[in-house]
């Protein structure tokens, strides 16, 4: 009985405290009402939000601001008004690389604010300002592309030079002229896509383990065995094997490991290795885009546009397969004399024995473990979208799991991470961020927007073919990085483009365009380098003759798929 009484008192006490707290809160709200807010949004000419613009509220003729705010990533701002509001008010908006703008508030708006009501201003369009910084950033970007394309500097050094020049001009030029300021160090870091950096890093560690197992050599040898010495049959098998490997590993690594063994197979069969190598590298460039992790350009596109592993598989793989079939038929046609003229009839038993020895798995235990971890990663890549798991996190988890399980030399594994490539990406993001900051990207986007109008089909064809042709002369990674905001603008403005069709067009163009010339893709250069060291040089003209028609065929077939998938 006594226990029941005590419980009643405790409940009464708790209820009392709760009511007192609610009363106290209500009381304080009543005593201090929230000040009225003046809110609005700032956009550029491409209807993209202007971030970090300084918004101030002033009384006309007064220099001291009454309220200050900065625009958020969605372009919105909110000014808290002071207790006493003057009769007339002006909103002043300014941001570096944009023209300043003053908006005089209507008497009705001022009256509402003075009455304690919040007011929402109409969206503001802030015009771009083309100043010295615009031209300097543009020159730096173009200079970087030229240095990379001509090979005068290593890719990473060219990008590092570009980023350093951007900072040097911003910090050292700013005291001379305000118009020379591009952006500060902290702002530049906001342009670096860390999802891309960590995804590439994780995959590099996984690849470092896989490449030592002998799986590539085994696959190539199995392709040879499966073909039973028929070159015309070996060619498509090798192309499919190379393509599938490229869809999960980067193209350069795939070709670094596939080229020597392919040359040996061709030598053993008494065939011209180029009849196998060129189609193989072209297949690598084509099939690599069927997954998010197959090419650096897909990693860039996926991270920027939020396109998942599954999205790439569903929306691109059928087009890629179509293009691969076209590429196989084309390769069989152009190399028909070599393919039908040679057979393994005259193969040396010594060479065959050596070939079989090369085609063995060297680290079966590591390969089994890598296969288990790889399968787990694949599952996480596929279901990642549902559980909001970023691909970069999956790659890091997979790489760590593999290292913990296999226990390799950790220093060797860390050395296997291509830090120069990661540095290249970081610097590239900064340089591309610079041209984005000064408005070059907006200008290009507006220009392309005017050409394509509201027509999604025209936009898709322009993006795909423009990317493909340019990728034959411009390194496709910096090109894709620069095109992302352009395609983003077109996606936001063209009716129906929200299905991301234009980003898939960019993926197709930038990757398959690499087949158009020897310098179009790093994998081409690596293949040519190894072939040259085996006495089979691949000249620029030779590659152009074989590769450019392949570009036309594969991009045309992939374009047909994109039209069927997204427009019909």
């Amino acid at each position, binding site marked *: 009985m006594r226990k029941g009484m005590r419980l009643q008192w405790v409940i009464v006490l708790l209820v009392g405290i709760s009511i007192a707290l609610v009363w106290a809160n209500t009381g304080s709200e009543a005593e201090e009402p929230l000040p009225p807010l003046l809110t609005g949004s700032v956009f550029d000419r491409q209807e993209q939000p202007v971030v970090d613009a300084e918004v101030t509220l002033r009384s006309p003729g007064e220099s001291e601001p009454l309220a200050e705010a900065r625009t958020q990533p969605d372009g919105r701002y909110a000014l808290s008004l002071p207790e006493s509001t003057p009769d007339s008010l002006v909103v002043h908006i300014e941001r570096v690389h944009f023209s300043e703008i003053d908006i005089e508030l209507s008497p009705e708006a001022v009256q509402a604010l003075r009455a304690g009501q919040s007011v929402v201003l109409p969206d503001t369009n802030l015009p771009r300002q083309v100043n010295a910084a615009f031209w300097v950033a543009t020159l730096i970007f173009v200079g970087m592309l030229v240095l990379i394309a001509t*090979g005068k500097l*290593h*890719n*990473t050094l060219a990008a590092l030079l570009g980023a350093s020049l951007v900072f040097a001009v911003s910090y050292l030029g700013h005291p001379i002229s305000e118009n020379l300021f591009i952006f500060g160090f902290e702002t530049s870091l906001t342009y670096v896509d860390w999802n891309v950096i960590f995804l590439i890093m994780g995959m*590099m560690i996984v690849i470092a383990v896989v*490449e*030592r197992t002998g799986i590539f050599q085994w696959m190539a040898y199995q392709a040879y065995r499966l073909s039973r010495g028929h070159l015309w049959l070996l060619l498509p098998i090798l192309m499919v094997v190379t393509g599938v490997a490229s869809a999960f590993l980067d193209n*350069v*690594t795939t070709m*670094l*490991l596939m080229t*020597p*063994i392919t*040359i*040996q197979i061709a*030598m053993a069969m008494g065939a011209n290795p180029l009849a196998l190598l060129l189609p193989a590298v072209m297949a690598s460039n084509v099939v690599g885009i069927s997954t998010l992790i197959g090419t650096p350009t897909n990693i860039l596109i996926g991270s920027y546009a939020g396109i998942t592993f599954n999205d790439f598989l569903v929306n691109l793989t059928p087009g890629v397969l179509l293009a691969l079939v076209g590429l196989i038929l084309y390769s069989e046609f152009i190399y028909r004399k070599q393919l039908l003229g040679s057979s393994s009839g005259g193969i*040396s038993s*010594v*060479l065959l024995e*050596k*070939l079989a020895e*090369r085609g063995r798995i060297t680290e079966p235990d590591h390969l089994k473990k890598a296969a288990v971890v790889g399968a787990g990663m694949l599952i996480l890549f596929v279901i990642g979208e549902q559980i909001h798991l970023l691909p970069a996190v999956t790659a890091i988890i997979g790489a760590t799991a593999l290292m913990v399980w296999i226990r390799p030399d950790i220093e060797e594994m860390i*050395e*296997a*991470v*291509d*830090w*120069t*490539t990661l540095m*290249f990406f970081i610097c590239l993001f900064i340089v591309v961020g610079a041209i984005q900051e000064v408005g070059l990207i907006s200008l290009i986007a507006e220009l392309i927007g005017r050409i394509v109008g509201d027509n999604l089909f025209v936009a898709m064809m322009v993006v795909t073919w423009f990317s493909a042709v340019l990728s034959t002369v411009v390194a496709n990674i910096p090109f894709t990085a620069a095109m992302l905001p352009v395609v983003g603008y077109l996606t936001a403005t063209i009716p129906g483009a929200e299905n991301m069709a234009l980003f898939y067009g960019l993926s197709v163009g930038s990757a398959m365009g690499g087949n158009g010339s020897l310098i179009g893709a*790093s994998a081409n*250069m*690596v293949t*040519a*380098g*190894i072939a*040259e*060291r*085996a*006495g*089979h*040089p691949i*000249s620029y003209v030779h590659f152009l003759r074989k590769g450019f028609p392949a570009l036309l065929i594969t991009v045309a077939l992939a374009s047909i798929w994109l039209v069927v998938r997204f427009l019909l």
Partner: protein
Amino acid sequence: MNGIVCAIRGGPDSGATIARAITLAQETEQPLYFLYIVNLDFMSRTSSTRVQVISQEMHEMGEFILLSARAEAEAQGITAKGVVRHGNVVQEIVAFCREITANYLVVGQPRFQDEESIFTQALLAQFVQQAEEQTGAKVVLAGGGAE
């Protein structure tokens, strides 16, 4: 230890170089060494830390190329050895010749001036002089297929 060093890199152009070296070995009855140099200069434009792995792959490829050359020599009654070295092509050829105190060094000549070869005609003349001075070996130029 004397002998004939034949520097090759494989491919159709090496055929004449290999044939000349075999003939020379038959004529002089000196031991024949086929030499392949793994040179990774082409990797300088590629951002890749795969040097160790690709170096091993190129080594294996070099052995395969040498095996083919040795089989050809064997077919003509000459037992040849194959040697794979890593590094700068010219320096490694000279170093190996000095190592075995070679009497002859057989290398190919570029067929075309614009061919992507380690030796252009001008560089080849310079190399011949340098190799003969530094190794004491007589340089024999074969038809095509310069290393």
